[in-house]
């Protein structure tokens, strides 16, 4: 038998445990211990097997999950609109998506993982379309991107596409390139940028771009260089729009912009500021006269007829010019000054140009003050109505008064209508002012004899709202004056408005039994068609003809003709501006019906009217008054 110390330790211990106190071996106990040890080993082996199986299963499951995840990941990657390519820290490709292959024109074989970026770019079919030089440049740009930080690159590719490459470093030391085709987006952006800076109709620069161009001019200014900023406004454009419709108006604007473009030098800038307003930057002005020469050319060229959709259209242009030293050019100020000059040009009768001067700025300031004052005047009752008598020449007696509005300014004294009516018209205050005058005149006239009429002037703008007949009706009703005593005076400029609407309103007024006069006849177009189109009750011959009587034989001829015409048509005639007895004599000879002027009286406040009607306390003929207004 083997010695105990030669036994394996476990068996030796088992033998020890199975040895009885007398040294004999308890074989049954030893076998029990040995069997238990085998069982323990067997159990341990079973546990190990089970654990191995489970672990293998777990790993298998994990692998399946990873494969599924990979599949989803790949599906997500391949459906991205951007190309992505992931590189490991040795700059070898780890993974790329289908879009990346498409953008670069790479085959599956080209995109084996482990390839480096240079190999990929060299294999790119898309980049091969570029010439050698460009291709090298594109590839170099890309491979030189920093691998350690985030950066971006934009390239124009040989096929015309605009491509952005974004690089982001990743935690394990590699980097991710994201490639996007931004061609459409860039086009859209460019389009949006263009739209934001150009007029959609004419494609000329708009106000925003004009301002930017002006700033550019300033930045690039040479020493002592000058430029001109012009503001243009088309005369009678509104009429074209109103009568021929907006499509014709739009086509006209396009035609105008084309003519303007042909008139300026290539480095000059034309902008459409809106409506019928244009602006021009005339660069490199060497002589002070150059802008004026250009303005004249423009006025001349734009005045030439246009044929649009079969219509022959003619318009004019007014131009305001600001000439400045480029270094001192302030876009806002220059445009404002040019605009003031334009305002002046229009005031001078349109179809002309004005160069800005500092008085214009002063005038504008005054005008702004006037505007403020005017608004106050209406609310504070600063307007009063004065009356100037009209004489029935044959009867030698007053047969009517013309109502004339005066502004009793609290600090500036009495202001004449021609100094504030145009401003009221522009500010939209004319309806309110007109209503006030008509109402006052009608009410005052009720205090006068029945045979004395009251004449009230109407501004063309009062016809725009379309409710003038209602205002007239209101004034008659409120004052209680017989409508037949109310004469409404219009000038022929009323006919430049919407003719149909004007005529409709005039007929309504006539139906009320009011009388309608044509004022200032002979100064404008003096078209006889006006007289034919509407049954005027009276024609008032402009004072300029009366003033010239005795000096200018033409004036007499005209007065004779008008008075004769009126006689034939059964229309009354009134001569304005009669200042001398000689003039009155001539008018009497020429069978003029009525006369009005300082010979009889200046316009007087209502309190003085009674004294004119009844100079001796009785109704007698008016006596000549002094000339002072």
């Amino acid at each position, binding site marked *: 038998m083997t010695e105990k110390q030669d036994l394996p*330790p*476990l068996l030796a*211990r*088992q033998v020890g445990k199975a040895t009885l106190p007398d040294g004999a071996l308890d074989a049954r106990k030893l076998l029990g*211990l040995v069997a*238990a*040890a085998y069982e*323990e080993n067997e159990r*341990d082996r079973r*546990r*190990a097997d*089970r*654990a191995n199986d*489970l*672990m293998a299963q*777990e*790993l298998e499951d*994990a692998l399946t999950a990873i494969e599924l995840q990979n599949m989803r990941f790949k599906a997500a990657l391949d459906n991205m609109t951007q190309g992505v390519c992931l590189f490991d820290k040795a700059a070898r490709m780890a993974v790329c998506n289908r879009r990346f292959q498409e953008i670069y024109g790479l085959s599956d074989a080209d995109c084996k993982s482990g390839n480096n970026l240079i190999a990929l770019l060299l294999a790119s079919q898309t980049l091969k379309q570029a010439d050698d030089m460009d291709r090298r440049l594109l590839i170099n740009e890309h491979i030189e991107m920093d691998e350690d930080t985030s950066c971006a690159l934009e390239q124009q590719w040989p096929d015309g596409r605009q491509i952005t490459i974004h690089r982001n470093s990743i935690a394990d030391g590699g980097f991710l390139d994201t490639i996007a085709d931004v061609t459409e987006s860039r086009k859209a952006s460019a389009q949006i940028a263009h739209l934001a800076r150009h007029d959609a109709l004419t494609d000329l620069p708009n106000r925003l771009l004009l301002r930017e161009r002006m700033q550019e001019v300033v930045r690039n200014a040479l020493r002592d260089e000058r430029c001109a900023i012009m503001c243009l406004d088309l005369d009678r454009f509104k009429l074209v729009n109103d009568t021929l419709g907006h499509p014709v108006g739009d086509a006209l604007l396009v035609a105008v912009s084309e003519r303007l473009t042909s008139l300026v030098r290539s480095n000059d800038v034309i902008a459409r500021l809106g409506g019928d307003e244009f602006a021009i930057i005339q660069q490199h002005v060497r002589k002070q006269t150059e802008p004026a020469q250009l303005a004249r050319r423009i006025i001349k060229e734009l005045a030439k007829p246009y044929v649009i959709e079969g219509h022959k259209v003619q318009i004019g242009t007014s131009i305001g010019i600001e000439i400045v030293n480029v270094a001192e050019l302030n876009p806002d100020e220059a445009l404002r000054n040019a605009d003031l000059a334009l305002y002046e040009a229009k005031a001078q009768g349109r179809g002309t140009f004005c160069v800005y001067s500092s008085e214009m700025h002063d005038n504008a300031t005054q005008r702004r003050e006037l505007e403020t004052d005017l608004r106050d005047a209406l609310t504070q009752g600063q307007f009063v109505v004065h009356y100037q008598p009209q004489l029935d020449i044959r009867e030698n007696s007053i047969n009517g008064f013309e109502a004339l509005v005066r502004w009793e300014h609290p600090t500036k004294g009495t202001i004449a209508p021609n100094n504030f009516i145009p401003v009221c018209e522009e500010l939209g205050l004319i309806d309110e002012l007109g209503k006030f005058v008509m109402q006052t005149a009608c009410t005052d006239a009720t205090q006068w004899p029945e045979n004395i009429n009251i004449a009230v002037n109407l501004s063309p703008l009062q016809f725009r709202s379309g409710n003038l007949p209602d205002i007239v009706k209101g004034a008659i009703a409120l004052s209680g004056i017989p409508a037949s005593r109310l004469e409404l005076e219009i000038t022929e400029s009323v006919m430049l408005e919407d003719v149909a609407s004007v005529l409709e309103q005039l007929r309504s007024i006539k139906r009320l039994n009011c009388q309608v006069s044509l004022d200032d006849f002979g100064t404008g177009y003096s078209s006889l068609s006006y007289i034919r189109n509407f049954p005027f009750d009276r024609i008032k011959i402009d004072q300029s003809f009366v003033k010239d009587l005795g000096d200018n034989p033409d004036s007499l001829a005209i007065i004779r003709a008008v008075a004769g015409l009126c006689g034939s048509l059964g229309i009354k005639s009134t001569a304005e501006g009669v200042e001398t007895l000689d003039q009155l004599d001539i008018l009497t000879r020429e069978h003029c019906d009525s006369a009005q002027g300082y010979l009889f009286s200046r316009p007087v406040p209502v309190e003085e009217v009674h004294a004119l009607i009844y100079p001796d306390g009785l109704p007698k003929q008016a006596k000549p008054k002094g000339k002072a207004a």
Partner: protein
Amino acid sequence: MWVKQLDAAQGMEGLKSLPGNPDLIFIFGETGSLQSSSLPGQLAKRFPDSIQLGCSTGTVIDHVKLSDEGLSIIAVGFKHTRIALHVHPLPDIAHSRETGEALGKLLAAPDLAGSFILSEGLGVNGSALVQGLQNILGNDAVISGGLAGDGARFEQTLVTVNGKPVSKVAAALGFYGEAIHISHGSAGGWDEFGPKRRVTKSEGSVLFELDGKPALDLYESYLGDEAAELPASGLLYPLKIWNEKNPQDQFVRTILAVDRDTKSITLAGDIPEGWNARLMRGSFDHLIDGASEAAQHAHTKLNEKGIQAELCLFVSCVGRRLLMGQSTEDEVEAVADIIGHNTPIIGYYSYGEIAPHNISKVCGLHNQTVTLTLFAEAA
């Protein structure tokens, strides 16, 4: 310092050979034996001035022999070392830290050289208990010991104090003075296997989910038929846990209880959420290598000072015992081979070991290890 192992079978007879009255008597006993034996009481009566400390277990270690029954007793006399025993109630798991702190305060003294802790083994969070001690004594405090055991039964654990077995307490033995030399060794020898998992739901020492799946399901599938013997069979597969952000934080955790309703398992120490976990399993050879490693470490520490260990307290995990069966004695043999067969060994199979980790000065609760505390007295 003298050390004398007593043969419990001889009862009080064995005391005749003692060189003097012992200062300290360690008693480890199989739970039933510890409750029924009159020997601890007689010893307490015979040596009223000596300190007696021990705990319950499933298997006692009496030098190189293991026994699943009876008691293992050793008497120790010191020449230059003062010792003190402190006991504090540990009513439930929630009081673990508090109890540790209370014991820490009782132990604290400028000349404290080291302490040996024995605690209730089931109703305790061993990590919290040790943390409590360290909160008072500092992270560098020399602390070792273990949680009382109950073999594969997991029913009742006891700490025996001066002749009386008591439950729901923790006891701390302090060694004071410069003469006492204490060294430690602790190692497992378990092999990691299977996939890395993540602790996705846990609360203190209760683990609910790994990778979003119930932790109990995982154990049941790995144990197969042996799942019926949970929680004991769970010891076959300890869990290594570690903090990925601080890989030094790593522990081996073992199962103390299972809750089939919540599909959770209660471990012998904390298992923080977000930490990584991997199952472990043991092969006889590697576990025995682990014991050798622990012994080598402890032995070297004393040897460097030219000191020979005079006593080895051997606390090993019940899981090792369950796995190795009769081969378990090999690990005790392996330890004796290194520290020397003349050095007396006494110890037990525990529900958790307390020792500084070999690679860290920080003391902590360990599971599934062999944890050795070597003593020597040198003036």
